[in-house]
């Protein structure tokens, strides 16, 4: 037998009270000399043995009452058959963990997995006694406790259950046992049962890792654990990507996006229509003839921008069993025009080549929306830079501290800076500079110029294995020999800052060619080489114009163009301290979440710690301000909806003590078999109260204690007391 509140057993020391009362009351038989004996009626005689018996009976009843009440409060419970003679009720504390990841929205045509899971929960709830503690937790990326130790009330529970629905999150299975263990430990019950109702996705349960198995075993030691699978077919298509590949995000231009569709099923799928919508209006559609099982296919979607401003773009498919992952979203910040200023310190070819790469047009025509200007280094503008979006510093020997601060402020406001090395660059002067707020303007400190040519005087090529960076994305589609022909003879030795990351490097080494770091709301790119032919031949290959135009597109974009994944944080950055103390995030379901603005790394941010829905959020600096859409997509890791069979589950979980209840009948039978825990507190409480009542009746009615109190005189007689 165990006690749910064992500390209360210390209350058994209270048995000393009735014993003390007995010892005191034993003195109540008092003796007195008496003269008027002839007037005393001898009809009421009390014998000593009678007194002792009465006192012992009272003592016994009081002690028993105290003991029984203490036992009741300590909540005795047993799982053992050895004490089956003890009266009690079969009670259990139940924790129901319901998988609410978006794979549970997968439908077999009749009902979704989540709806079938709800039915299984209803079967479980039929075995719960009213008053038993019940917890309901929705599993996902972050597990949400809906009910915590609620005294079970069928109608209330059914009402709460019917309000639940699956979220757009993936399931974080590894953290499930620990979360459930916390809930188990927080529950007081003679027997604790945990029911995990899930679709047992193969990528989660099929590879049950050792730590997970160990955690489940630990949970099994704390409670009886039942795994209730609601499996379904693994057929599913998902749009797993939608990326800007090329093109400028300017009014009147066309950008190319690439949509990727993955077939997670075991059967090939043919004729998949991929539609592209801009602000909800379909503007393009492509058909993928066939997607083999387990494969991805991509289509290019061309998006014309007729208007400036933030633009919502989606790629979607239809006719699928799981709709949540059938759409992918992106946001494009379309500008009216883009202005680039090139500050040329080379007084020669480098600046010219850079200008040429930016002005390169297939038709050779001038683009009104894309203005590129060049000034010589000594004419570095000192006035307002508000009309400029990107500044390129090409082989600039040095700048003043004021100019550094001006550039830093320029970048922090959301603009871009591209820095090129060159023969004229004075490394020590640049290293002495610090940007506004003390942080460095460039992503690395400069060193000496080093030779990267080999013995034959041929430089090293670019590393073809590039990161999946927006800047690199168009280069990945270039023929490999074109990349390998781009040779670098010299480069500037640099020491990257902690906040910077590598975008391009030389093949066969990790020597950086292009570095990036963020500064406020903008970005700074740093070439460790020059555009001049004495440093490399990059400017003479198609790589350079593609790279430069992609960099400008990237820099003129906005931070929220990068789509987020459900569960990611959403951050709104401010260059200056805003007037409003709160920012507002509107969720896709049209709920407004207010987030306070706080100071962060020399700037101001409003951070929504977790996005919980898939769709377009809208971030606003205040309630009245216009919004900036943010695309939030589902994590397609969850799109692989193939499930593990019950047999495979049992094998996988062998030794963990977890019972797999595959069918409704199995579930009911398993519950009945496992539920042996009985609670006896009610019995002890009733027995204790009964003894109190009997003692009270005995003392008051038989001994006339009430009348004694009523008739008690205030002045006690001076008499001898006897035992």
């Amino acid at each position, binding site marked *: 037998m165990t006690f749910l509140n064992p500390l209360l057993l210390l209350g058994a020391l209270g048995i000393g009270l009735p014993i003390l009362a007995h010892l005191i009351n034993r003195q109540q038989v008092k003796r007195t000399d008496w003269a008027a004996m002839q007037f005393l*009626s001898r009809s009421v005689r009390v014998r000593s043995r009678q007194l002792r018996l009465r006192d012992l009976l009272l003592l016994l009843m009081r002690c028993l009452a105290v003991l029984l009440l203490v036992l009741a409060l300590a909540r005795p419970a047993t799982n053992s058959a050895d004490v089956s003679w003890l009266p009690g009720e079969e009670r259990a504390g139940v924790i129901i963990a319901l998988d609410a990841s978006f794979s549970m929205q997968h439908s077999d045509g009749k009902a979704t997995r989540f709806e079938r899971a709800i039915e299984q929960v209803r079967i479980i709830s039929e075995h719960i006694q009213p008053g038993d503690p019940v917890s309901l937790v929705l599993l996902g990326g972050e597990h949400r406790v809906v009910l915590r130790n609620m005294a079970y009330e069928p109608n209330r529970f059914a009402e709460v259950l019917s309000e639940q629905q699956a979220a757009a999150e993936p399931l974080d299975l590894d953290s499930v046992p620990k979360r459930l263990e916390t809930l188990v430990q927080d529950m007081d019950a003679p027997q604790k049962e945990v029911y995990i109702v899930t679709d047992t996705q193969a990528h989660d349960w099929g590879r049950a890792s050792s730590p997970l198995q160990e955690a489940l075993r630990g949970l099994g030691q704390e409670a009886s654990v039942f795994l209730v699978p609601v499996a379904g077919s693994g057929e599913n298509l998902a749009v797993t990507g939608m990326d800007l590949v090329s093109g400028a995000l300017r009014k009147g231009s066309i950008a190319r996006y690439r949509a990727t569709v993955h077939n997670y099923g075991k059967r090939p799928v043919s004729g998949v229509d991929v539609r592209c919508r801009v602000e909800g209006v379909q503007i393009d559609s492509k058909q993928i003839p066939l997607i083999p099982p387990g494969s991805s296919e991509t289509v290019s979607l061309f998006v014309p921008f007729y208007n400036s401003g933030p633009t919502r773009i989606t790629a979607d498919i239809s006719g699928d069993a799981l709709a949540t992952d059938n759409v992918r979203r992106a946001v494009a910040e379309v500008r009216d025009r883009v202005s680039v200023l090139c500050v040329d310190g080379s007084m020669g070819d480098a600046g010219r080549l850079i200008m040429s790469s930016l002005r390169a047009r297939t038709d050779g025509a001038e683009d009104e929306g894309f203005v590129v200007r060049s000034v010589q280094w000594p004419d570095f503008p000192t006035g307002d830079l508000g009309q400029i979006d990107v500044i390129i510093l090409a082989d600039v020997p040095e700048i003043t501290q004021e100019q550094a601060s001006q550039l830093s402020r320029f970048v922090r406001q959301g603009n871009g800076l591209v820095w090129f090395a060159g023969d004229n660059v004075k490394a020590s002067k640049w290293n002495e500079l610090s940007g506004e707020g003390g942080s460095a303007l460039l992503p690395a400190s400069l060193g000496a110029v080093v030779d990267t040519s080999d013995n034959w005087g041929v430089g090293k090529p670019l590393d073809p294995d590039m990161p999946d960076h927006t800047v690199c994305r168009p280069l990945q589609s270039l023929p490999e020999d074109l990349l390998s022909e781009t040779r670098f003879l010299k480069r500037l030795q640099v020491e990257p800052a902690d906040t910077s990351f590598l975008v391009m490097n030389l093949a066969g080494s990790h020597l950086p060619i292009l570095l990036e770091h963020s500064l406020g709301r903008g970005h700074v790119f740093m070439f460790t080489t020059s555009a001049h032919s004495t440093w490399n031949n990059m400017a003479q290959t198609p790589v350079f114009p593609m790279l430069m135009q992609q960099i400008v597109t990237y820099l003129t974009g906005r931070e929220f163009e990068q789509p987020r994944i459900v569960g990611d944080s959403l951050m709104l950055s401010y260059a200056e301290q805003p007037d409003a103390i709160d920012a507002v995030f509107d969720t896709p379901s049209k709920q407004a979440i207010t987030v306070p603005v706080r100071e962060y790394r020399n700037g101001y941010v409003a951070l929504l710690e977790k996005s919980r829905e898939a769709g377009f959020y809208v971030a606003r600096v205040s309630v009245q301000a216009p919004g900036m859409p943010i695309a939030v997509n589902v994590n397609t890791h969850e799109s692989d909806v193939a499930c593990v069979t019950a047999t495979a589950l049992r094998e996988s979980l062998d030794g963990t003590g977890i019972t797999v209840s595959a069918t409704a009948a199995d579930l009911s039978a398993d519950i009945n078999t496992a539920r042996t825990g009985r609670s006896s507190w009610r019995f002890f409480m009733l027995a204790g109260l009964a003894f109190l009542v009997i003692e009270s009746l005995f003392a008051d009615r038989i001994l006339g204690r009430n009348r004694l109190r009523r008739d008690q005189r205030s002045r006690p007689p001076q008499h001898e007391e006897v035992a």
Partner: protein
Amino acid sequence: MSENLPETNYLDPELLQRLGDLELVAREVVEGIRVGSHRSPLRGLSTEFAHHRQYVPGDALRTIDWRVYGRTDRYYTKLYEAETNFDCHLLIDASSSMNYASGKVSKLEYAKFLAASLAYVVLKQRDSVGLSVFDSEVRTYLPPRSAMGIILEIDRALRDIKPTPKTSLAKQLHDIALMMKRRSIVVVISDLLSDVDDILAGLDHLRFDGHNVIVLHTLDPYELEFPFGGTWRFEGLEGEESLTTHPERIRDDYLANFNDYLGNLRAGCVAAHIDYTTVDTSRPLDAMLSEFFFQRQSTLAGPSIGARR
């Protein structure tokens, strides 16, 4: 009593017990009863004039010397030479039952103070006081005399007695009656816890001998009210079998029996022209005496002395 003298500070019996000196006790009690507030109820008749005293309110009008008034325009009362023509005999019951005390003062001690105070009053009037102490037999008999030493004799006589249960009150009263030579005022101070007929027989004997009998029925308040609660064992002082009982359950019966007994006793006394007074030992002695004197004085001139409570 307190409605008669509501403002008076009385002498608590326990305070008197602490005084120790019985003569002092008697003086404190009696002198505390203001002169002139009432006539002495035990005063006898005397014809030999002694002297005058200025009249004070409360003195009987018949004692005013009108001739002196005619000469001086002042009221004087005539006081007579104390001629010992009157004996007072105090009969004190010293049996075991008189030792009962619910408080600190037993009935016997109260009786002692009562006797001393009465003796003091009588001696102050220059009458004679005699004393008898009895329990199962007559232990002490002092013939009446008019010396203050009788008060000390009371104390000594009671101190020397080893109380024994009384057997028959009538027998003791008979024996004492035989010892008394002259008609006297006989004051019986006793709890009278005996058979009513036996008591009345003894008292009647005294009456038949021509004595003026006063019964001061001395009882403890617990005997009058029986306020016990809980479980009690009662040990009989007169050798009765002890009884363990719940007093609150027998209280009604007790009070009924006791009141019957008191009623019978009082009726018997009235019938025998015996002055009967119940004395509650919880009451201040001087208050009790004051009330007793007042009531006795108010009925002194009457044809007979009735029992009163």
